[in-house]
Every structure is written in C-alpha cells, then in structure tokens.
C-alpha cells in the first residue's frame, strides 16, 4: 500500500548536533588519525588541536623508545596480547618502528619498563584522538 507523503514532516534527517548528515567517506578522519597522530583533526582543519595531539602522542612514543621501551612483536600470553593491541594503536609509528628494529627486545632496566608503558599508552591515546576526529566528522561532537 502506498501513502502520499504530501503534507507530512519531510525535514532532512539531522544529527545530534543539529547539522545535516555528513557527506563523503566519514571514516577518513578516523583512519588518518589512527595512521598518524593528529591527522584526523588536520583533515577537519582543526590545526591547533591536531598539533597538540600530534606532539603529545608522538612525544610519548619517542620518549618510550628513548627509555629503551619494548615494542611488542607478538602475543605469548594475555598481557603480551594487550600490550600488542595497545602498540597497534600507534598506527604507522608502530609499523615503521618495527621495520627499523627500534625498541628493546627485552626490558632490562627500570626505565625501560616505564618506556614500554609510554609506548602502549601512546597507542591508546591515539585511538581516543582518532575516535574524537570521527565524532567531529559525523557531528556527534559539535566543535
């Protein structure tokens, strides 16, 4: 059965922020932000925020490497698996570091243990930043 929509409310669908639905590939800032810290915000022309996120996340990752932190290469047990997932959040930083053989194979000094945590947390923060870029893109976050 067909109904006429004449006279019915046919306003365009709006997002929570009150804007029209986004056009194009909405996952681009999410993927770009994951691959390179801050890139998702740069795509959305949020230069200041992108720069701060970039400096914070890359700074944390580099400090982790400088402290001889370990980059997880595989998962032997559950904790290793969690660390590996955290490291993966660094996107290209993780893959390039693996290719260049950066990071220690084993934690031998106390600061290396801190460094390992810096690298994992940098990855987790990068995921948060990428999701934030996605939320800005879809209009779930207004500014």
């Amino acid at each position: 059965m067909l109904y006429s929509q004449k006279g019915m409310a046919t306003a365009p669908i709006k997002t929570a922020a009150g804007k029209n639905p986004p056009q194009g590939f909405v996952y681009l800032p999410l993927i770009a932000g994951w691959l390179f810290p801050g890139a998702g915000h740069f795509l959305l022309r949020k230069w200041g925020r992108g720069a701060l996120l970039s400096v914070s996340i890359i700074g944390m990752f580099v400090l982790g490497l400088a402290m001889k932190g370990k980059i997880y290469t595989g998962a032997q047990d559950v904790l290793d698996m969690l660390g590996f997932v955290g490291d993966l959040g660094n996107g290209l930083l993780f893959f390039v570091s693996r290719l260049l053989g950066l990071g220690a194979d084993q934690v031998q000094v106390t600061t290396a243990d801190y460094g390992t945590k810096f690298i994992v947390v940098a990855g987790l923060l990068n995921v948060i930043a990428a999701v934030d870029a996605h939320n800005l893109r879809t209009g779930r976050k207004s500014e």
Partner: protein
Amino acid sequence: MTNLSHFTAVLLFALFASTVFGITQRETPRRMFRYGLYCFSLFVASAIVISWLMFLIAR
C-alpha cells in the same frame, strides 16, 4: 638512552595524557584547558599519595 627519574616520567606522562584527555573529552577550548589541568593535577596528586602509601607500607 634517556634516564628519567620516576617523578619526571610521571610528570611527562601526566602532561601528555592530560592534553589528549582535555582535547577529546570537552568541546570548548576553555573547558578543554580546565579539564586538562584537572586531569594533570589528579595524575600527579595520586602518584604522590600512592608513593607515600607504598613507602609507609614497605617500612
């Protein structure tokens, strides 16, 4: 190799994490700054309190 003291590492960790939390969890720049400052204070204060607790327990 960088030999940071534990406290310097805590400060740097708190600074970077608070920056990301502030930017991602709030919407206006003013609220971002205030929330970042709040997170930084909590990170540092909790590290100091827990350190003292561990020191007292270990004695």
